[in-house]
């Protein structure tokens, strides 16, 4: 039995609904991310992005408002105060140590963070945690920790982001469109490896 679209909306809905306004108490939503120098040294590819409010503003200035996807991106990031990504790809399965990851998980044990989703796929050997930071009843941050056999990723979003809008931009960032229930291609998963 597949996950129904209503369940997926149930996961996204509360975050999107709570994210209607931007909370002013920013610090709890911002994780302290280590440099992960050890991971970067072992990784075959790494992504290290830190965009604070100033850089987000600068980036927004270079989005083309007359281009529909740029305009949608501009709207999406309107409530953001920061977006931080650390992603590492390795040449062997589970080559990354968990100690530094645990430093991040400890921060997510703070009362301000609520676990929205924890899912473990034994078939794909992946583990994904999604947390939302709530301050006075308003969501002001999001954290995703994704462990895959050869890739490890942490995403920390500070501010409000409409996940439904992000999902609508799916396919625009070089990720092939997946057949998610919200109005995509009729339930077929088009993403297959090119090899």
């Amino acid at each position: 039995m597949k996950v129904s679209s209503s369940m997926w909306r149930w996961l996204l809905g509360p975050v999107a609904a709570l994210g209607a306004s931007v909370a002013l108490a920013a610090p709890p939503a911002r994780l302290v991310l280590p440099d992960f120098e050890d991971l970067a040294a072992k990784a075959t590819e790494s992504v290290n992005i830190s965009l604070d409010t100033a850089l987000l503003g600068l980036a927004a200035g270079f989005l083309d408002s007359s281009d529909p996807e740029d305009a949608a991106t501009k709207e999406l990031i309107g409530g953001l105060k920061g977006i931080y990504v650390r992603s590492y790809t390795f040449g062997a399965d589970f080559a990354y140590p968990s100690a530094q990851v645990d430093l991040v998980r400890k921060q997510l044990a703070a009362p301000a963070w609520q676990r929205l989703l924890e899912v473990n796929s034994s078939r794909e050997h992946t583990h994904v945690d999604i947390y939302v930071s709530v301050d006075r009843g308003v969501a002001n941050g999001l954290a995703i920790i994704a462990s895959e056999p050869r890739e490890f990723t942490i995403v920390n979003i500070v501010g409000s982001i409409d996940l439904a809008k992000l999902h609508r931009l799916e396919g625009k960032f070089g990720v092939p469109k997946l057949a998610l229930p919200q109005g995509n291609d009729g339930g077929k998963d088009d993403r297959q490896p090119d090899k």
Partner: protein
Amino acid sequence: MSPDLENEDLERRLHGALEAVDPGERFVPGVLARIAAEPAHAQRPPRAAAVVSWLAFGLAASVVVAVLLAHEWQLRRIEEGREARRQLVEALRVTDEKLNLAYRAVNTQQQAAPAEHSGA
């Protein structure tokens, strides 16, 4: 009396047949003319002009240097902005990819659940 075309032969011929062609000498002037014909506010602002004066040569030189520095700053700012935009797009791409990963994992679990129940 052409033999049946194998794919490789067809692809080679397609490359040849679809080689890009030139629009002609008038094309570039045509584009520039359309830009020039646009209302003044739609055109880009002119670059700052250097002020030349025999009597105020020293001042003019300072102004030129300041303009050049400002131009350099502007170019650097443009590069920074482009890089910030590129990083933003990449960050959103990774976020979307991991959310989809979570969705797929949830979906996989749901599919496995009935099989477990039937085997119990």
